[in-house]
């Protein structure tokens, strides 16, 4: 995959919750058309970084910027409008709305706004593509877990974001579903989308990521291609402990 210029710049960010330092002075860049994996053991600060980028939390210090625009001082809705879309670690659909309305929620207010007929067509196309086309006027609450995850992805894509954040989007899927999920993300990658994904599934990391940033106890301990970082001594140590 050819990657372009730097799109998102994470510069020395730190996040403290009271006395706990969840993210400690972390920096990395995300280039255009790149899939960046954010990996590390549980509690190492990956999801916190996602929350900092999307504006769910405010950074304690450091900056996050998209090209020349500083994101880290903006509220979440403005970050979304600037072109950052996300899925949530624990899937969050809008249960009282229909499936298609869920998708239109992603395009009505976000980065590339659409409303009315245009938004409707786009949502239909997205749902067809993600395999939810048949039931689009049903209530979203009726969907199975994997379909809820698909719906969340459709919602994130509807705003045509410049950066897509997938927070453990593949977690909790069975092996068949997992393969479908990996194929989906790999299609997005081929389209040249810029994606940051937090993931535990090693197969997914190997096949999807151009580059990985490895976190441990809030600090960045390695960065490189999946093959490089997964053979790195410190990374193995972080995952498996001593011995």
């Amino acid at each position, binding site marked *: 995959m050819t990657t372009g210029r730097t799109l998102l710049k994470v510069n020395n960010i730190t996040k403290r*919750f*009271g006395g706990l330092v969840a993210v400690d002075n972390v920096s990395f860049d995300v280039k255009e058309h790149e899939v960046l994996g954010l990996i590390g053991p549980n509690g190492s600060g990956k999801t916190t970084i996602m929350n900092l980028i999307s504006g*769910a*939390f*405010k950074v304690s210090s450091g900056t996050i910027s998209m090209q020349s625009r500083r994101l880290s001082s903006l509220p979440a809705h403005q970050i979304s409008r600037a072109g950052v879309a996300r899925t949530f670690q624990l899937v969050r659909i809008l249960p009282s709305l229909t499936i298609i309305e869920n998708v239109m929620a992603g395009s009505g207010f976000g980065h590339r706004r659409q409303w009315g007929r245009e938004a409707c067509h786009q949502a239909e196309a997205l749902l067809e593509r993600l395999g939810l086309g048949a039931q689009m006027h049903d209530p979203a609450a009726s969907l199975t877990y994997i379909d809820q995850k698909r719906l969340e992805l459709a919602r994130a894509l509807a705003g045509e974001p410049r950066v897509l954040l997938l927070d453990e989007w593949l977690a909790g899927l069975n092996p068949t579903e997992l393969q479908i999920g990996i194929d989906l993300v790999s299609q997005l990658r081929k389209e040249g989308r810029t994606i940051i994904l937090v993931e535990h599934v090693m197969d997914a990391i190997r096949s999807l990521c151009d580059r990985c940033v490895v976190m441990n106890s809030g600090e960045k301990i390695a960065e490189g291609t999946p093959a490089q970082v997964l053979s790195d001594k410190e990374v193995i140590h972080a995952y498996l402990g001593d011995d």
Partner: protein
Amino acid sequence: MDILVSGFLLAGTYALIAMGLNLQYGVARIMNLANGEMIVLGALAAFWAFTSYQISPLLTLFLAAPLSFIGNWLIYKFLLRPLVKRAKNQGQLEVDSILATFGISFALVGIMVSIHGEYFTYSFLANPIEVLGSTVAENRLVAFFIALAIGLVLYLWLNHTRAGTSVRAVAVNADSARLVGINVDKVSALTFALGGAIATVGGVLISTFITLDASIGVIFTMKALIIVIMGGVGDIRGAIIAALILGIVETGVATLVDPGLTLVAAYFIFLLVLLFRPQGLFGRRST
């Protein structure tokens, strides 16, 4: 100085009531808008026992508290527990419990009005006494020390007993508490009942120095809520300071400006809290 002393004494009872409400919201997760009616029930019991049988409010306390405990336990068990069960999330539980406790509150006001529709006027220990160079009524002083004693016992119980620890565990995280073998339903029900009993005790105490009537409960609910929010949910130290601020500001406004403006003063404080410290006096901004 008079204002400071009276305000300080009033704050004792306020802090106690807020502590009860804090338990109900923090542990049982019920936003109890019928809290004020429990206060008024206590006041009504004290008034009735005193005027009909010349029973001292200090004795009524021992009768009213267990009765209120049982009553509130039944309310939780039969009215609120079903709501906790059916709620899909905290938001829905909040809406449901607010509406249900409104219903309970109105029903209680209706019943109390039919029992005694006038002011609960009686005179108990209304002798002047000198404290720190200013004159206050004896009843205020007695109420303050009882509130203080109960609050202290409660604090020690919460922090230094096994039962108290399980209550605090449920407050922090009900799901984890369940995992370590705490019966969350039981703890929630008992805590709710305890909170109600505390409100009733507060009502008995307040009635010795403030004249209440059947429909005034909502004002006390407001004040208790303001204290809880100002102090930070679950923060006992914060609640005490908040009660002090509210007690003194209220007494100050009532003495210096107009007694009709105490609620306005409470609102003014509330507004400042919402604008500048919505997380409570000592709370940290979580997000």
